[in-house]
């Protein structure tokens, strides 16, 4: 099985950081919106996609950070 290059794992970590950043921005937006429906409901939708991205990207980045980035 092909081992991913170091730069790919670096990219994974960078993507994970971006996901966290997006979440922070959306939570800030939510706070600014003060429950205004257009903000509240669309922010909720974005946060649902963050949950999905966490599963597929951030969680993988976290465990590969610990192990040094090996795959099968």
């Amino acid at each position, binding site marked *: 099985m092909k081992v991913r290059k170091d730069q790919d794992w670096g990219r994974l970590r960078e993507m994970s950081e971006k996901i966290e950043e997006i979440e922070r921005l959306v939570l800030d937006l939510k706070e600014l919106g003060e429950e205004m429906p257009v903000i509240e409901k669309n922010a909720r939708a974005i*946060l649902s996609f963050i949950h*999905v991205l966490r*599963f597929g990207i951030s969680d993988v980045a976290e*465990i590969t950070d610990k192990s040094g980035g090996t795959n099968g």
Partner: protein
Amino acid sequence: MKYWNPYLETLSRERLLELELNNFRQLLQYAKEHSPFYRQRYKDFAPEDIETKEDIRRLPLLDKKDLRVAQEARGASLYGEILGVDPEDVTTFRQTSGTTGRPVYVPETYESWQWRVEVWCHILWMAGFRETDRVFVPFGYNVYVAFWEGHYAAEKVGCEVVPGGALDTRGRINKMMEVKATALLNTTTYGLHMAEEAMKMGIDPREIGIKRMLCAGEPLPQATRKRLEHLWGAEVYDHIGGTEPCAWAAMCQERDGLHIMEPFFLVEILDMETMSREVEEGELGVAVVTPLGRRSFPLLRFNTKDVVRRGRERCPCGRTSLMISEVAGRVDELRKIRGILFTPVSVEELLREEFPEIEEYEIILEKKGAMDEITLRVEPQEDMEGNALAKLSARLSERLKTKTNLSFNIKFALPGDLPRHTLKSKRFRDLRGA
């Protein structure tokens, strides 16, 4: 790109299991904090007790009847004590079919629904669905989950989705041709039925233009899958799932077994006798599924009662997830007949592979005195008679004996006599309790 998520889909086995155990611990913690049902059920278990897959087996299995009991104590919420979120956060109601008892209500939040859809994006991508596909869904959507996830996932993948619910079968065939559909989501039985109907309309199903088909709702033996491929001139893919556990395994373009959708799910395939041991490669077992990212309706160690055969660990596609080589049916469809374990799907496999002259069939199990008797009723093609039927009967008896170790009575039905199924097949009847 070959993979929807190349990092996840080619992750090592060790890392996949680590992810699953992490998520299982988090889900257990979440379930205990948010659901009175789980708080009580798992009061003697803590997330830190879970270090290995073997540790997970100390938690009790969850059955459909447990879900019903949890929902009977409804209180303020329709979903009862099992709900893992505030009732106001629920955005979608679905329910099970209720064929085995009172339906179970399955709530999703926007977040948990998107998680389910993401799993389906993986499934569709593995089956070759792309932005250039126009996906026809020949069903009406309703309180059951069937085809909803596929529709939303196809949209997210970038396909164009054509919902074909309000039409009859001929209307759907015409509409597929009119819009130049390239892909189908349907049940196995309906795929066969549409092909049969198209031919009655004088249309070769291959000319409809479908390039890929994803089947749902019932087992798809390899022989039936190949028959659908031949009829439609399309690639045909299988997957397995349910309303409660979501879609947890699916076929890649190798079309040889199903990949478990790791790490979205932690799946145990346990021996049927004790439900305490993971089976080895090649063995049949019952699938116990934990959807790891779904908090609205936490399910830990849900006994799906689906009987599957554990497959290999590697696939030429490069994905590292565990595989299932066969879906053998439901636990409640398996029968011991004269001491021999029988699966109705084994008959379908044989007939589809070796007996193209049989249009339709039905299996009937009865008690005659002290003995179980099994009969196969078949509807041969219209032009068969006399000697040809005698030879067919002899060949069927011999091949069924080899395949199942059971002696079958063979009876012929007249053309058109046997029921036709459109949504899901019901070809096995056990009349012993009648």
